[in-house]
């Protein structure tokens, strides 16, 4: 140990950084060399600012949200800055509201569809990336980077324009390809078709991250394993399911959880795509919660919807955190 005789300056907070958690003995051995209080306070001082911001803008609002969902909080309450406690009334109202159940089912179906599609396509594209020749791989990953970098709001505007009922390129292309007569076809008249486009948009936006991550995982699969399986007569399909997929399982768990979290709270894609005026047949939970709070000005009811949304998402979070904890990332 080169020890610390010179480190008497007050900036020692960061200097003590040299004592890594990497070795317990390091900590013990250098203990007599510095005032104990400084060393034990330093890490807390370092994390305190971040902790304060996270607590103030995330933890506290989370608690506030839960409290709000038990209140009647409309326009008069907004002006008075004080809600009226009504117990579980907001939840009872939701539970007996057929629209709410439609919204929940719609959100779940939407999430399952987008997550399944983006995972399947993402994995397929990653496997494709592994098999194409060098220049094509470069082209493909370059294209993915551009899509990845496109801001969500920009992406929504582009898709809106491509599927414009009058001059959209999609209607023109589909008509030219003799899929049918799509001249002046309004995709958003029928919510089923409208959601088809929203799902396509979300999947398109999600693919780059998924493809690049799965591809990075594929690079870590030992070649010998694949070769051994192939020489034993396994088909490509079998190699994927019996060799590659089990090795990539941790990555798949994380990607599944993250995709679920992102897609389940979808708001922008529906809201902007329908020009901030979606009909109730387009409501997903994020939109429904927003409408109840900011359009109907019933913040308590909107909060109750949000609480249900968070509660459902916590299950996805659970698997993600457990995976990260298992992979030793918390040590």
């Amino acid at each position: 140990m080169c020890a610390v005789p010179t480190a008497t300056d007050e900036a020692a907070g960061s200097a003590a950084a040299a004592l890594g958690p990497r070795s317990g003995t390091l900590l013990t051995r250098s203990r007599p060399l510095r005032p104990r209080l400084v060393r034990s306070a330093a890490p807390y001082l370092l994390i305190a600012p971040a902790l304060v911001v996270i607590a103030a803008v995330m933890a506290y609002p989370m608690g506030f949200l839960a409290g709000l969902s038990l209140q009647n909080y409309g326009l008069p309450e907004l002006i008075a800055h004080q809600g009226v406690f009504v117990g579980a009334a907001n939840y009872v109202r939701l539970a007996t509201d057929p629209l709410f159940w439609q919204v929940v089912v719609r959100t779940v179906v939407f999430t399952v569809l987008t997550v399944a599609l983006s995972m399947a396509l993402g994995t397929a594209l990653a496997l494709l990336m592994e098999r194409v020749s060098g220049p094509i791989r470069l082209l493909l990953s370059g294209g993915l980077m551009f899509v990845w970098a496109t801001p969500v709001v920009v992406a929504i505007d582009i898709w809106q324009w491509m599927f414009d009922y009058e001059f959209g390129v999609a209607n023109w292309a589909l008509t030219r390809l003799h899929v049918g007569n799509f001249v002046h076809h309004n995709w958003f008249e029928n919510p089923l078709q409208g959601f088809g486009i929203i799902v396509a948009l979300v999947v398109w936006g999600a693919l780059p991250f998924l493809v690049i991550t799965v591809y990075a995982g594929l690079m870590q699969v030992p070649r010998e394993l694949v070769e051994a399986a192939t020489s034993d007569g396994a088909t490509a399909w079998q190699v994927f399911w019996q060799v590659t997929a089990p090795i990539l399982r941790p990555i798949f768990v994380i990607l599944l959880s993250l995709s679920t979290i992102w897609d389940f709270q979808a708001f922008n894609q529906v809201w902007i795509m329908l020009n901030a005026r979606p009909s109730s047949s387009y409501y997903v939970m994020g939109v429904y919660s927003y409408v109840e709070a900011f359009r109907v000005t019933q913040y308590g009811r909107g909060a109750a919807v949000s609480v249900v949304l968070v509660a459902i998402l916590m299950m996805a979070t659970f698997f993600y955190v457990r995976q990260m904890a298992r992979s030793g990332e918390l040590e």
Partner: protein
Amino acid sequence: MALTVRRRQARRLGYDLVGVLAFAVMIFPVYWMVSTAFKPGRDILRFDPKLLPSPFTLANFADAVARPFFWTSVRSSLIVVLTVVVISLLLAFAAAVGVARFGFRGRRAFLVMILVVQMVPLTALVIPVFLLMDGLDAVDTLASVIVTYLAFIVPFMVWTLRGFVANIPVELEEAAMIDGCTRAGAFMRVVFPLCAPGLVATAIFAFIQSWNDYIVAYVLLRSPDHQTLTVWLASFTTNRGTDWGPLMAGATLTSVPVVTFFLLVQRYVTSGLTAGAVKG
């Protein structure tokens, strides 16, 4: 033998063709935005669209830039983004050093919290954040947006930077100290420079996240002269319909800074969320 080689070549060619097709499908929307942005109005409103912008015009860009609130939105976005980048870097780097270099009680709990907090759906939090900011009379101020972004961005940055700091061997610092550095000196001369790529990567992450956000700015910034660029862009429709040319020009302008920065650091961003996951 020759047969299998030929078959393998044919298969490779087939994959390449599918690859080119996938590229075309993925990139087309982006291409269509840029192409539309450079087309004159009469070529945009056509039933048989032209694939290439010819004749070529900058009129849509001139139109977009001259729209009400474009420049105020650019200013708001820049103020918000730059403030968030600077403050989040300070907060996150301090916390990252704290968890990477110290063993302390509550460290694991802090890391679990950092992880869990990244899963909180932003959509669910806009209601309480709006009401709390309203109670503080902070609605419609850029400060309210900045603080909210910080809370959502810092956890990921701590997580990523922590990896960078932890990867620097303690022995390097010790060596510097044997050569006469103070602890603080060793930290500034060894740890800080070695973390530079991580700091750049997370700074750009913060930039992109806060530049791209829509819902927080939409809820918190009520007056048009305070709104950010994405809110400006999303409210482009008029009662008479959408002006697609200027909209696509505005969308292109909004994307340029993000795309530029993103391409610079994409290799760091990729590994952040899933680092170490394959260890199983």
